[in-house]
């Protein structure tokens, strides 16, 4: 996972991504129903879309953020901080549980709750 902000930082991230994943076409913005948005917290789209991912064989292998995540947690307060914490927790749990939240039991339950 790589985080950053500003034009310079964004350029550095892109450069690093291209070095590691030379054949990639660029990070894809996380969609509303992406697994990353529901591994622990249900992330709101305005925050989840700040995450970009690369996938290989269905798995997320690269996550980048437009806004600093960890430094934001330390620096910011209120809702922006809370949402950064939530994004970070979801990323960690994705790393530890993989596709767990894509299991049918979870999907059915969450779909029912959304109704």
């Amino acid at each position, binding site marked *: 996972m790589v985080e950053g902000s500003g034009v310079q930082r964004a350029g550095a991230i892109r450069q690093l991504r291209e070095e590691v994943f030379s054949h990639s076409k660029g990070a894809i913005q996380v969609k509303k129903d992406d697994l990353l948005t529901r591994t*622990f917290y*249900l992330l709101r789209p305005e925050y989840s879309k700040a995450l970009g991912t690369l996938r290989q064989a269905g798995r997320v292998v690269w996550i980048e953020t437009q806004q600093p995540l960890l430094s934001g947690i330390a620096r910011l307060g209120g809702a922006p901080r809370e949402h950064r914490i939530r994004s970070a927790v979801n990323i960690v749990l994705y*790393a*530890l*549980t993989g596709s767990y939240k894509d299991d049918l*039991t979870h999907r059915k339950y969450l779909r029912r709750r959304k109704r």
Partner: protein
Amino acid sequence: MSWLSVALVLLLLWAVVLHQKLLVGLGFKVRLIHFLLLSIMGGLLWPVVRGWERKVEVPVEEHQLGVILWDASSSMGKNPSIKEEWKSALEANAHGQLEWMEFSENLLPPWGEGTASQGTSLQGALVDLEDNLAKLAPDWIWLISDMGFQPPREMTEVLTDMKGYLTRLEVTPSTGGDIGIEDVVRDPVWYARTSSPVRVRLRRDQLEEATEVDLLFHLNGELVTTARGRFEKGSHQADVVVDLQAKEVGPILLEINIAEGQGGARLENDHWLDEIESLRDRIRILRVVGRPNWSSKYLRDALVKREDVDLVDFHILRSMSDMVMAAPNDLALIPFPVEELFVENIDSFDLVLWQNFNQDEYPFFRPAYLNNIRREVKSGTGLLLWSGTLPWRLDRGPLRELAPLVTTGKDHQEVKGSLLSSLGELGWPDALSFSLENLPPRSYRVFKGKLQDDARVALSVKDTPLITLKKFGKGRVAQVLSDSLWSWSFSDEASSHDLYDEVLGRLLLWLQQHPDVENKVMEAPLLVRSGKQVTVRLRQPLGKNSRALWTSRNGKTFSGKEDLLQGEESLKLEAPPEPGFYRLGLEGTDFEVEIGVRGLQDEFWSLARCEKTAAELIQSGWRPLKKGGRPDWLDGGRSQVLERDSGWPLYRHPIYAAIWLILLIGHWVITNRILLRREKGTRLR
């Protein structure tokens, strides 16, 4: 002489009288021609009359031809030695020359559609026999079958046409109030933990009032269900259908009994036992992870990618002391459906996997759930305990009894060294053992504890167990004492990359008692016949003199007469006289195997009984020949008269009829000419 013969003779007499009048005044030549014409016509009529009633005298010198229709689809038919017994018994009784015809009625339901597996169907055999009756000319026909013989509607005509030739020797003579298991229809192959229908047909020999009979169903000696069959008033049959499911894979013994005291006079048809092949397409695994970590993720990925695994996965993502400052609607968490999993559906899983989960920390996890797991393991489910980062206490509650190695939760240590695999129950292939033992020494975070007496170590690092195994009741428990096994896949050794998957695969096979990894110390046929000799082979020679002990489902022991001597590897044992499910063990050794002993099941018969029945029938003037007839050889006579169709084909031929018609027309023409001439007053010469 029949009415037809009388009618024809009278007709001829009338014709002669009429012609005497007609021929008055005619010349000799005309009279002669007319007479010859009539004679030829009369002569041609004679075989028609005679043919109907032709009697053939057949001298019988001791021998007669008997046709035996042998029901090859019956249980006795499946056993060639039984047929040989029958043959020798009948031939020894000098019943004459025997022609054996086999038929099969594997056309279940009883007379329904299907394919006869052996030869023709009974109907086919009878039709064939009827067509060849004249040619074959059997003196008697026996139909030997073990079914309470009720021909289908369309066969009644065939049987009627067989007239008195056919004698049904039913091997299920009325015994005065008997109820038996006539037939059991089931799929030969089942899928483990999937319901399969079993239909039992009961038969009774008397049409008394409506009655009910209780049936008990056992799978591998374990009572799985009971059911009740009801005979309606006036009905011989009652069907019982139950849905059964086997938990194990491999050959399974299905045993059905009529409840004691309800089966009537004969006991041998109150019991039925056969083999079912149970397959498993997917292993249904329930995994509970107490706290996710890399080890749990790695195991999940390994399980998910296996095609033979159906994983129901639950991770505890919050502890009881967590403070999550979010509304429930902001969380993607679902309630842990404990009741649904551990009460309602626990019996639907082949394997329960407990990983890094300390149930004591969660008040919602009631002790009853662990007791349910214990019960299921005892009846055949697998349990895989996999350590993690959380304290791991297995020294109390039901898990203490289940765990091969009892840990106290605190002794979590780093052990570095090479692996040592213990060949044994897991049946490591040599290549797998070699790869494991040749892994470079590495550190493992290991929980230590006390190995239970009946547990075994399958893999260890130095002298510290890494994987332990234990059998509990009919089920099995495996324990992985480190959460670092995933590191094998990241070794520099290319050969170690698949080790994790291979070891996991072995564990899964062992836990589900898959025949592929079962290490049989004793090999014996799964089904044997009561009282017959059984050959048993041992993997290792007997270490000391011993005796065979057959222990039945209800604990009754039958001890064989054989003395088994030290060093023997192939043993010949006598099966118990009573049918049922047995555990065959060798006294003072670990050798044990499960065997089904079949009696005279699904057979309303016994050879001894049938011989007696046949003898009684003969003695009491049993008539296997035509209606009202009696074969002389029964009384010591040496010949007899049989009435048969002569089989003369000519008079049935169209040319024969055409000749007769031409003669008739010729006669009519001549007669007309006579009458015409007479009217004209001219004289015929």
